[in-house]
């Protein structure tokens, strides 16, 4: 093999590795065009070849993943025959994310407990039936008794699972309103719906 070919091979190997890194780290399927744009010295069709090459590597080496073409792009995905194993990762351990409504309602329950549905609705300004049901189902909120007075409405409170979920050692570890001010004050500007990406790092004043 001439020196030239060797150089070429090195280059091809380097490109293949970069393509692999890109496919691995991307959040969504990447088109050959996009990859070629990043590589800068490769055409989309070369990229397609490199991807085929990678996929062949995975097959030959018995890797747990393959490359699949999705939505006009390429993506590394786990092999279908391993699906049941992968699914066990996402078992009951990770229920869907709480909605903002659920989070708000939960926050009020945590701070105002024991609290009636009417109180929750008056603070949030909207009905909370569905949200409350979800929270009870997910064992973040429990029925904590009945209020005195007309109709003796149900009272709601948080559960032990609530503490666990948020990593709180106990209910009294919830910051008091004055402590909340310290932890979350000054967000006025940012609360104006995040006009700038707020993670502006540096904390000059501190």
């Amino acid at each position, binding site marked *: 093999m001439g020196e030239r070919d060797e150089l070429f091979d090195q280059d091809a190997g380097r490109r293949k590795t970069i393509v692999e890194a890109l496919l691995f780290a991307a959040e*969504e399927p990447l088109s050959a065009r996009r990859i070629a744009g990043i590589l800068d010295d490769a055409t989309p069709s070369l990229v397609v070849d490199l991807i085929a090459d990678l996929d062949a590597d995975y097959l030959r080496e018995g890797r747990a993943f393959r490359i699949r073409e999705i939505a006009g792009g390429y*993506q*590394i995905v*786990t092999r279908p025959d391993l699906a049941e194993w992968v699914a066990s990762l996402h078992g009951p351990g990770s229920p*869907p994310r709480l909605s903002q409504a659920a*989070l708000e309602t939960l*926050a009020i329950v945590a701070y105002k407990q024991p609290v009636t549905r009417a109180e929750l609705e008056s603070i949030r300004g909207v009905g909370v039936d569905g949200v409350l049901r979800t929270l009870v189902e997910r064992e973040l909120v429990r029925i904590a008794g009945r209020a005195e007075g007309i109709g003796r409405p149900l009272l709601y409170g948080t559960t032990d699972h609530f503490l666990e979920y948020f990593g709180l050692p106990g209910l009294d570890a919830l910051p008091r309103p004055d402590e909340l001010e310290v932890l979350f004050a000054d967000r006025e500007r940012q609360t104006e719906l995040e006009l700038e990406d707020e993670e502006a790092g540096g904390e000059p004043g501190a």
Partner: protein
Amino acid sequence: MAGESTGHSVRLESLDFEGPLELLVYLVQKNEVDIWDIPIALIAEQFMAYVQAMTPERLESAGEFLLMAATLLRIKSSMLLPRPEIDEEELEDPRRELVLKIIEYQQFREIADHLREHESDRRLVFSKGYREAMEGGEDGPAEPDPERRASLSDLLRAFAELMRDQARERLHRLEPIPVTIEEKAAFVRELLARQGRATFEELFVPGEPRTHWIVTFVALLEMAREGEIRLRQGETFGQIHVYPREVA
């Protein structure tokens, strides 16, 4: 060494120290003095020179610097007192407490440097950004990170903001709402029709009264509930994107 004390103050002024301990560490290093035998008069003098030259922007932390200055002066004067002969072993060096503080602080600064290195290293490696990786379904890619767990910080923020909103509500309750949900929904539709999708913040026109934003927000919730639009957020503080339903 002690003779050239004032010579440093000029350049010192232009440096920025976040707190008095940082300044002290700097002075100890710069003067190359033994931490266990700090020439307190010298250090106090340079410290005061810095404090006196502090710019107005730094006045926020001036209190902390002044407190330290007072400590330095107190130590300096107690060093001048004649020491009683008795029990010299037991007599504490008036500088001791300060020295321990400086050393402890310096240790944490070094740990901070250490963390900085880790931070840099860590930023060179990337984990898989895409979580739904199971072949089989043909329904295209899942939304990024749909199941991120709510953190305590999310919860607390929700409450802090509710409290603030309530306080604000009380102040603004009598204001008439000069815009309707329908109007805002129409605005959102028009924007989406024009550009296909929109970021959350594009929908909130800067300078509008807060009530408009609230109405826009309610309109969005309404439209999302009706399935007319979809909201997506890639990461916690990331951009929220608004899509019309048809776009897959």
